[in-house]
């Protein structure tokens, strides 16, 4: 077996992984490797050939691959090693990585610190319990995106898209460009689940008929999809009899959400938050397993790539410091919890002494949309630490609150920090 030692090993080469590798190097780690199962670096960005990337970090409107190449070039420059076409099969709590590839066969990597950056996968769940046939012509939106943008083939001509996630909306436009017809987009919720921006640019602008509070209740066609039957749902998401509509189509795309990819994390004993599907992390992006850090969609699903990059930089820096033993652990731990209308907050734990030195960001998503100004409040044991206004809040958009060293005194002695969202007025 091929065996090698690294200071920092990063699993996954999406924007999260690339940023982590670069930051680890810059933090003084000598040998840094990125392990990627695909034949190219860049992660999911490579199939996102639309623009809309980099608005925060570069103040530019880049395509996915363009955004990725900036970091791939930088990683090369700083001397990050890359192992491509290499699949990580196993990870132990002692940071031993087992991977395979065609060239070296089985590979064992011992790392002083590991950064998990495996991204997320699409939920196939929407389709699983739909009655009807299981013909060809049912794809998740991301799989369709790969077929069209990477393989260069159309998975169908007449589409119904179930779910209004971002990838579904982006694919609605992409498929229309390619001369296919998107017959309908159906969303079970009373509001779209992706970004407003995508709704305007991909759905409205292309006259794609979107129906809210409807779902697919039957799939017709034995060999290839021939039609789907949709129905209105009540407040418990149950189909309402009499509202059925048969929509002829040859393809059903599912855009019903993403879940962090954490099979490896589980093997390493990393504890996962059932609300996010990702590991519990502290303010250094470290998981409960010492020396194992995590960044990007593997932690919780991000809406914008820029935040993924930032999270990667943070995780990579701390992984680098951990590997070179420049970080001294303190045992001061403060829990961060979700209050009213907050789904979850990242990080889940923080060390107040870090805040004494540098600002830190709390990231969260709301449970329910509020289309009116709200207060976002951070409280330490019930005492207000910080508050800010948001013009509206939507589950599809991540929200950030920054704490600065000024706030240190207010949180220093607290047991618990909580974030909540409150309607104004």
């Amino acid at each position, binding site marked *: 077996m091929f065996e090698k030692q690294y200071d920092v090993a990063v699993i996954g080469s999406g924007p999260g992984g690339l940023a982590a590798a670069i930051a680890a190097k810059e933090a003084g780690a000598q040998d840094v490797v990125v392990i990627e199962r695909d034949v190219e670096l860049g992660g999911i960005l490579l199939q996102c050939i639309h623009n809309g990337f980099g608005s925060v970090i570069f103040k530019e409107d880049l395509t996915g691959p363009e955004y990725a190449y900036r970091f791939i070039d930088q990683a090369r420059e700083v001397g990050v090693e890359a192992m491509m076409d290499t699949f990580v099969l196993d990870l132990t709590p002692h940071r031993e990585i087992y991977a395979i590839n065609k060239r070296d066969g089985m590979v064992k990597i011992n790392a002083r610190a590991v950064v998990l950056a495996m991204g997320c996968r699409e939920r196939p769940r929407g389709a699983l319990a739909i009655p009807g046939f*299981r013909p060809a012509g049912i794809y998740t939106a991301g799989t369709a995106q790969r077929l069209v943008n990477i393989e260069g083939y159309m998975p169908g001509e007449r589409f119904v898209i179930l779910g209004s996630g971002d990838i579904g909306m982006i694919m609605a436009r992409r498929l229309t460009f390619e001369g296919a017809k998107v017959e309908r987009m159906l969303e079970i919720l009373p509001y779209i689940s992706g970004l407003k921006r995508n709704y305007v640019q991909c759905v409205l602008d292309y006259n794609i008929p979107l129906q809210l509070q409807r779902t697919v209740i039957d799939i017709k066609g034995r060999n290839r999809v021939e039609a789907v039957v949709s129905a209105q749902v009540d407040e418990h998401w149950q189909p309402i009899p009499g509202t059925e509509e048969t929509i002829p189509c040859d393809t059903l795309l599912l855009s019903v959400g993403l879940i962090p990819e954490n099979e490896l994390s589980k093997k390493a004993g990393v504890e996962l938050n059932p609300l996010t599907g990702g590991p519990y992390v502290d303010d250094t992006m470290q998981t409960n397993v010492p020396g194992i850090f995590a960044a990007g969609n593997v932690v919780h699903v991000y809406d914008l790539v820029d935040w993924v990059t930032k999270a990667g930089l943070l995780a990579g820096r701390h992984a680098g410091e951990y590997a070179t033993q420049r970080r001294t652990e303190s045992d001061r731990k403060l829990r961060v919890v979700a209050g009213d209308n907050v789904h979850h907050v990242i990080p889940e734990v923080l060390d107040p002494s870090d805040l004494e030195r540098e600002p830190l960001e709390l990231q969260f998503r709301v449970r329910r949309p509020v289309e009116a100004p709200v207060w976002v409040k951070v409280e330490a044991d019930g005492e207000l630490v910080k508050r800010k206004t948001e013009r509206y809040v939507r589950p599809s958009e991540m929200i950030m609150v920054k704490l600065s060293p000024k706030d240190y005194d207010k949180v220093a002695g607290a047991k618990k920090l909580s974030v909540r969202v409150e309607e104004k007025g």
Partner: protein
Amino acid sequence: MDIKEEYKEVKGKYDVIIIGAGLVGSIIARRLSQYELDILLIDKEPDVGTGTSKANTAIVHAGYDSPFGTLRGKLVVKGNRMFYPMCEELDVPYKITGTYVVALTDEDLKTLEKLMENGRKKGVPGLEIISGEEMRRREPLVNPETTGALYAPTGGVSDPFMLTVAAAENAVMNGTDLMLETKALDFVVEPFSLHKKKVAGVVTNRGTFLADVTIASAGLYCDELMEKLDIKYDFYVRARKGEYYVFDKAKKGSVHNVLFPCPTPVTKGILVTTTVHGNMLLGPTAYELKDKEDTSVRAEGLAELREGAKRLVPSLEITDVIRVFAGLRAGGFLHDFIIEAPAKYWGFINLAGIESPGMASSPAIAEYVENLVREQGLELRKKKDWNPIRVGRPDFSELSPEEQAILIEKDPRYGRIVCRCETVTEGEIVAEIHSPVPARTYDALKRRTWLGTGRCQGGFDTPRVIEILSRELGIPPTEVIKESWGSNFLTRPTKDVPEGG
């Protein structure tokens, strides 16, 4: 399919032709392949076992329930005894788990007594009625109201589809010709004697093949073939749909036993069982229908499953479902297997109504058919070099890291993971595509390697598998199919607009 003139051209001559490569036809072929016979096994579909054999409950019934005095009752008990050794020879997974019929009332206990009595008369070994308490000890999730259970230690579970592949493969290894996408459209019938005609062969879409003995083992389609020969029984074949839920292996609160509810005169009820691969399975429903192609799952069917299963296991939650599917039983009126050489023909053996427990009975069915073949005048001489052993191809995910390393060194394609959830490599896929019973469709690969059956349900592997099938079969990606004709994945290359659009 219309019978075109060209189909009538004689393309070959065999001793035996078997129509239908389901598990029954395949096991018959394998059994006959030990003799000096030229055998042709045909199936209309692109893969073997795509009929009833791919979608059923997969229980190796002990045989206590099929009535005493029926052919089915006889063959299942014998089949059960022959079944596990056959799996050993063919490298097919099985588990002798024992099975339970669970009684929930005192009334049910009487039914158990009757079942046990029926089983004992037929010679089912080891039957025993255990107390409700003992049942709860063995399966803590069972309904707390359980009053007792009939335990059948020889019952088990297997993988009917892999059994079909393995049996067909072993037959091919021993000289049987297998022709897929070959549909029997009609028979060649010749005069024979005053009272009999001779079935002298089969007309297919690939030409006509002559044979001394023709065996029809067409599952649900047996009636279409019988019609051609004007064979009528006191029943007609109807499809009875059975729907199922399959759960993730990792589901919490899974049942790891085979639990039958107590049968009523109307229904056998909904089972809670575990597949040989460790997934909890609920099913089947029983719904009569006319359309033999209708394997769609009904919302009512799923509701029935949820309710039925909760009777056995009240704590059951329908979460972590990885699949719902439906299988079609070839149900007849007689409720017995028909396996015979109809009196008005010579050289023809007919199998009809082979419904549950067809899998458990299959080795005994094959033995029974062998005797009928002999009665049709064929001399059965053993081959000297018959090899009953078939060895499965390596399952990468089951190997130790050292074994995996060796495999990759021999063939680097084992170093590329194509299905991330079930850890299936390109090497395994290519091996299946070029195996004696080749997998040439996505579903054929899925059934053999379990790719695409995990958490992401094919999201990751589909583009990669299309690419591999296209390359290995030398066809454009747009011609790669999922299962049957018309199940193409892709419509066209991008950047060209469909006609008229």
